[in-house]
């Protein structure tokens, strides 16, 4: 079995628990030892045959927030600590993206529910995953319709007004969509819980993954 297949066959609960251990590790590890966790990430990504481009692109979504917090921290903590703060956030995001790549989002949702995560939170995550592309399509259609009627020639103030209106329309359409989805769920017997047929079984290798992650973090932290 290849290392990539080994990673993808892990129980998603084990992946989440190992990820949690590493995220805690990133938060508490002295900054001088952070590169060890970064190197480990590269090893995991290479072993898992994870595509570097998409991982970097997705993880970059955290950078605006991380950089904002880092800038806010500069007056009190200095440039060096601000850079470390941003670095910790980015490495954390990279680990999360690699974990999602290796376990797939649907298996992670099921794992979250089985680990005791509140059902409403899991449901919201599932719905965001499922419908964000639908809403993005609606937003794209609205933008195309506005451009087709020459909105770009009307000036920035007018465009700002159109953008604000688009958000209102999107909200209304999302509400309408949500109502119809709820009706469709009720029509198939929904009674407040979304049951999952997914049943993964923890194996020895899954336990080793969790223990390995915890041991690694403790080792780096205490050395």
């Amino acid at each position: 079995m290849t290392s990539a297949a080994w990673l993808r066959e892990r129980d998603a609960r084990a992946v989440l628990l190992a990820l949690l251990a590493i995220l805690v590790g990133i938060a508490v590890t002295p900054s001088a030892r952070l590169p060890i966790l970064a190197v480990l990430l590269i090893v995991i990504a290479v072993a898992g045959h994870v595509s570097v481009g998409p991982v970097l692109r997705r993880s970059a979504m955290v950078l605006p927030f991380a950089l904002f917090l880092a800038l806010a921290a500069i007056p009190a903590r200095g440039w060096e600590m601000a850079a470390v703060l941003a670095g910790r956030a980015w490495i954390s995001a990279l680990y999360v993206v690699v974990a999602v790549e290796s376990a797939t989002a649907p298996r992670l949702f099921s794992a979250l529910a089985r680990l005791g995560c509140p059902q409403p939170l899991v449901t919201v995550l599932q719905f965001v995953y499922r419908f964000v592309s639908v809403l993005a399509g609606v937003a794209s259609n609205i933008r195309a319709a506005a451009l087709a009627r020459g909105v770009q020639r009307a000036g920035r103030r007018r465009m700002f007004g159109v953008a604000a209106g688009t958000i209102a329309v999107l909200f209304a359409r999302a509400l309408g969509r949500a109502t119809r989805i709820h009706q469709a769920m009720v029509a198939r017997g929904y009674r407040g819980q979304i049951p999952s047929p997914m049943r993964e079984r923890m194996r020895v290798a899954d336990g080793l993954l969790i223990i390995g992650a915890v041991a690694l973090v403790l080792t780096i932290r205490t050395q």
Partner: protein
Amino acid sequence: MRPVISARGLIYCYPDGTPALRGVDFDLHEGETVVLFGPNGSGKTTFLHHLNGLIRGEGRLTVCNIDAEARNLARLREKVGLLFQDPDDQLFLPTVLEDVCFGPLNMGAEPAAAIEIAREMLELTGAAHVRSRAPQHLSAGEKRRVALAGVLAMRPAVLALDEPTTWLDPPAQRSLVSLLRTLPQAKVVATHDVPFARAVATRAVFFDSGRIVAAGEVDALVERFEWLP
């Protein structure tokens, strides 16, 4: 023979007071496929939603001898499979297999049994090859087949289909016609698609302003109401 669906004097007003159904009498018998014609806003979808208990108005409605009352809603939803116009409203779970399992699991099936039913229905509807995929990555035809599999997985006695050919290309429409002809359930189909109606219907009714104003052969109604593009 008792009808599988019997509606008498069905009346429904939207919460804002707009009347949607103004006294609908309708029977559906086993083996029948009845097409609902009528202008937009004439009450076809509202009527279909009554069959599944999604909305309840005044009048009498029985489905497979079950009265459409609050205490019977769970049984009613097992009997009537409702296919929505937009499959994106119906397919909300992260994978196709999970979505098709949703109905059987709600009815109390064990996960292994639900997966077995889901696989069977995906096979039946010709969508077995997409069972591990995310619904948002399917074509319109595939989404329609998966949505139908999700409805059939509840083993309904009646199928209520709302504009099932919307967004389907001609080959996908032909494929849907072939599939519907193989399904033994009685069917009520709201549609504007006359060729599709001709291909599947045993008879038709015409809705207008919340009432059934005519019933008969598809071609007779199409001619009477000039219902061709």
